[in-house]
Structure formats: C-alpha cells, structure tokens
C-alpha cells in the first residue's frame, strides 16, 4: 500500500479495530505504547500464510515448506533493513524485546560477566531491561550501577566518566522511555561505553516504532525490539546484534533447528542466526512483522515522525492548560517521543483511566513496568496517553474533554 500524502484519517481506515464504539462513543485509542493496532495488510498476511502456505520452515522438502521458508526469511531481510543491519543473519527472531534482552543477558552475559564486574543501566529502564541484568548479577556476583535522572527524567550524564570503569562489561539502555517518552542520547553513551570496552545493548521497544533507526549510526552492539508495537502481531520481535558478536556467543536455548550435528556427548551448532532459534519459530508472526514493515515503509517513517511530532506538540499544549495536571518527563516536544505521562490533581491514575474508558478513550494507568522511574518522582503511578500514526487532533480534543470530566468528579 502506498499513500501519496500523509493523512491520518485515511490511514485510520486501514485499522479495523479503530472502527468501533466503546461505551457509546467512537473509540479513541491512546494506548499505543502498550501495543499498536494492526492494519488490514498485516491481518491479511497472517491469514494468507495459514490458508495457503502453512508448514514448518527449513525442514520439509515440499512446496509448502519451501514457500513458508521463503516468506519467513524474506521477513528477516525486511527487519534487517528496518534497523540498518549489515546482513539478514544479524537478525534473531524472538518473542519480543524482553526475550531479546534475556537472550543477550544469558547467552552472552554468563560467559562474559564475572564477580565484581559492572553492569550499567539507567533508572529510566523498563523492567525488561532491569530484571534480566539483576538475574545475571545474582548468578555471577556482578554489580549493577545506575545512570540517574534529572527533574525532567533525563539522564544525568555528567557522572558518566565515573560510572564507566574498566570493570564495566555491559551498558544496557533504552532508546526511548516507555514511562516518560524521553528520547535518550544513546549514541553519546554508546561511544563512551565503547571507550572502556563495554558491550552496548539498546532496548528499542519504543524506538524502532516511531523513527528510522540505524544501528550503525547509533554505534551500538545489540538492538532489541518488538513487532506488536509497530503494527505487527504479538509474540514476535527481534534482536539485532553484530555478526561477530553472535558468532562468539553460545546458544540461548537448545532444541531443533539450532543444531549442526548431534552426538551422544557433544553436539555442534547451526550457523547464525539459526543457532539462536531453537524449536519451531513463530512463522506467522515473523511474516506478519514483515508485512507491518512494508506497511510502515509505504506510509513513510519520515512522514509518520513528522505527524507524531506535530500531534505531540498539540497534545502537550492542550494538556498543559488543564487545571491541576502534572506532566512528567521532558516538557519540550523536541526531547519527547509519542507519549505523555501525567497525573491530574488528586485523582489516582486508575480512576482517570476508568473515567476516560467510560468515554471510549483508552489510556494506560499504572507504573508502566518502570517502578524505578516512578520512585524517582516519588509517585506510584501515572496515566499515559500514547499516540501513533493514526491518531488525530480530534482524538486529543476528546482526551481533553475526558480530563475535564475527571476534574468534575474529583473537584
């Protein structure tokens, strides 16, 4: 699908889920940071695979298996192109960002991190980029250090030279914060981390969704992301890592498809990427993620980024004017990705979310799997409105109306 000029109203029609009323009002979906809706082309790709080509990949010597394998590997190449990988074999299919990070923390971590070594992460991380490293630290005796945040939730980088030492083995940081929307200076931190020889892993769950990502330009070693936040199906995601790094790593899980030869005592592994893909993979999911990339590429990532930036500016301006609101994270749209985290007077975020839901408006309320970031601000939860390519100014207007209703109830 190619869209000549960017028009969110036209784009919206491609998403069947958005064409419904909730609680008697047309749905306003502002929970995109949790998961995006799926365009028709992605749903069609899933259906077409199951109806026409369903079979296992890299196994059967028959026509269906050949077709499934071709589609599966073509999707890998699309994902590789999406983030600027040097070659498709640098893309490992995973269940999502979380599994991609666990793959590195386990398969790379257990062999490369030892007692007294240091792992540097930030207070802003999603739990999926904290817990895998805590598990690794517990098993190896390594120490976790944190990049702290300023009052707008930005990394305090003045302390970076002190935080990075010759014991720092890995720096694991998010590209864009899911809790505050902060776009983080990953490139700068990656360069400093490489000075001390540390591996740099980026949690790109909220990154590759809204902007063109070039892992070469970012200068990182691993980039983890999910399909479902970028119009693809759930249960599929990818790890990009440098080929030489992947070659040097032990497998993550053992099973079918990841072997070269199996003996009674010793076995050898398939080459990258298959070495990391034990068991029958999520074939339909991979094909669906490829279709999502085709869709987003057709719309144009630059056009999407521009639209989201303008809409975010509009939302920040209108929301700031609501009496009693507090917006967390950077206040300028230029430092901000497509979400706004906020509280409103003494209304608890869950109450905000219930009241908005009664008006057909979907937002997220809670700690957003970022309890360390919440603790930094001395709160337990925020409400979060997150936008995507199909959201419009009228969605924001509806949100503002809903917030006024919250104020009415909690006045």
């Amino acid at each position, binding site marked *: 699908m190619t869209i000549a000029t960017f028009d969110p109203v036209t784009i919206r029609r491609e998403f069947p889920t958005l064409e419904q009323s909730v*609680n*008697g009002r047309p749905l306003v979906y502002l929970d995109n940071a949790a998961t995006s809706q799926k365009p028709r082309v992605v749903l069609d790709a899933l259906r077409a695979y199951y109806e026409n080509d369903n079979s296992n990949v890299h196994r059967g010597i028959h026509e269906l298996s050949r077709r499934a394998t071709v589609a599966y590997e073509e999707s890998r190449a699309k994902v590789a192109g999406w983030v600027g990988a040097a070659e498709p074999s640098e893309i490992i299919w995973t269940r999502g960002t979380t599994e991609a990070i666990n793959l590195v923390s386990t398969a790379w971590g257990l062999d490369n991190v030892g007692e007294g070594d240091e792992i540097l992460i930030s207070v802003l991380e999603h739990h999926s980029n904290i817990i895998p490293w805590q598990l690794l630290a517990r098993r190896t005796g390594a120490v976790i250090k944190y990049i702290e945040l300023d009052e707008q939730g930005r990394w305090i980088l003045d302390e970076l030279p002190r935080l990075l030492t010759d014991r720092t083995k890995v720096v694991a940081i998010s590209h864009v914060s899911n809790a505050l929307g902060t776009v983080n200076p990953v490139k700068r931190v990656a360069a400093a981390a490489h000075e001390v020889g540390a591996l740099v892993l980026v949690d790109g769950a909220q990154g590759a969704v809204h902007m063109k990502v070039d892992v070469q330009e970012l200068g990182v070693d691993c980039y983890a992301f999910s399909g479902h936040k970028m119009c693809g199906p759930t249960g599929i995601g990818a790890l990009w890592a440098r080929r030489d790094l992947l070659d040097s790593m032990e497998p993550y899980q053992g099973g079918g498809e990841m072997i070269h030869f199996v003996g009674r005592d010793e076995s050898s592994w398939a080459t990258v990427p298959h070495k990391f893909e034990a068991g029958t993979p999520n074939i339909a999911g991979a094909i669906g993620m490829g279709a999502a990339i085709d869709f987003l590429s057709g719309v144009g990532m630059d056009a999407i980024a521009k639209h989201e930036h303008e809409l975010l500016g509009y939302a920040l301006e209108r929301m700031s004017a609501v009496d009693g609101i507090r917006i967390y994270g950077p206040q300028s749209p230029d430092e901000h990705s497509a979400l706004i985290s906020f509280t409103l007077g*003494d*209304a*608890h*975020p*869950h*109450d905000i979310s*219930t*009241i908005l*839901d*009664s008006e057909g408006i979907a937002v997220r*309320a*809670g*700690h957003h799997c970022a*309890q360390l970031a*919440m603790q930094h601000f001395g709160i*337990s*939860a925020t409400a979060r409105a997150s936008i995507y390519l199909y959201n419009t100014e009228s969605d924001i207007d509806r949100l503002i109306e809903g917030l006024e209703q919250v104020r009415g*109830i*909690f006045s």
Partner: protein
Amino acid sequence: METPPLNSLYQQLILEHYRNPRNKAELEEKSVEIHMANPVCGDEVRLQLRITDDQIEEAKFVGQGCSISQAAISMMTTLLHGCSLADAKILAECFTKMMQGDPDAAKDKRLKDLRVLQGVSKFPVRIKCALIGFDALQEALKTYAKEETS
C-alpha cells in the same frame, strides 16, 4: 460490554473516604500486620490489627492506591473496631460476595457504608481494587489464628 454510569462508582462517600481516610496511621502495638500489593496496578496496603481475647481492639492501615482501594480499606477499618474475629471473617466474606455480584450479600446490613461500593462489582477491572483491604484482612485473620495455635 457497556460500562455502567460512572455515578454508580464515584459516589460522594467514596471520594470523601479517599480524601480523608480513617485510621490511616501506624499502630504502635500490633498483634498482626499484613502487607498486600497488587503488582499489576501498584495498589498497596499494610493492615495492622491489635487483637485481645478474639476481639479486634484497633485496626489501622498505611497504603496508597486509587480511590476505590483506599476508600474500601478506610471504611473497613471503621467497622473492625470492637469486632470479634468471627464477625470480621463474616464481614470479609460478605463483602467479597458483594463484589462477585451476589445481590443478597449487597443487602446485608452488616456491611453498613461499604454497601456504597456495590457499584464496583459492575466494573470487572476494578473489583481487585475494592478487595485488596479485605484480602489483607482475611490473610491477617489466618496468620493470627496460626500464631495463636502454635
């Protein structure tokens, strides 16, 4: 499923307890303390009871969360003062049944002000909020009974 009107949820008495919670403090002498949290939404309560001769002398709590969870705990503590352990258990069971949509439980006069929370039962995703205090109470009663017998 259509959400019922919001006024069945956000009644004045609920908002009043949310803003001015009763018995929200640390208990100096406590017989039992239970910490209960809902990791999904961050609601949290530490319920503390002082019990003498199978009777709750004092009930206090410390916690944070939404209006529903905080109001329910606040109202609950007001009913626990001077309440026998057996009656506290009945109260918890009765409230839980009301949240599960049992119309007879909702008519039970022993629930007193807690009956204003009946509307929560029509909001499935919020039932857990209303129950966190009573879940803590039931856990506290069990823990206390175990400690007494051991």
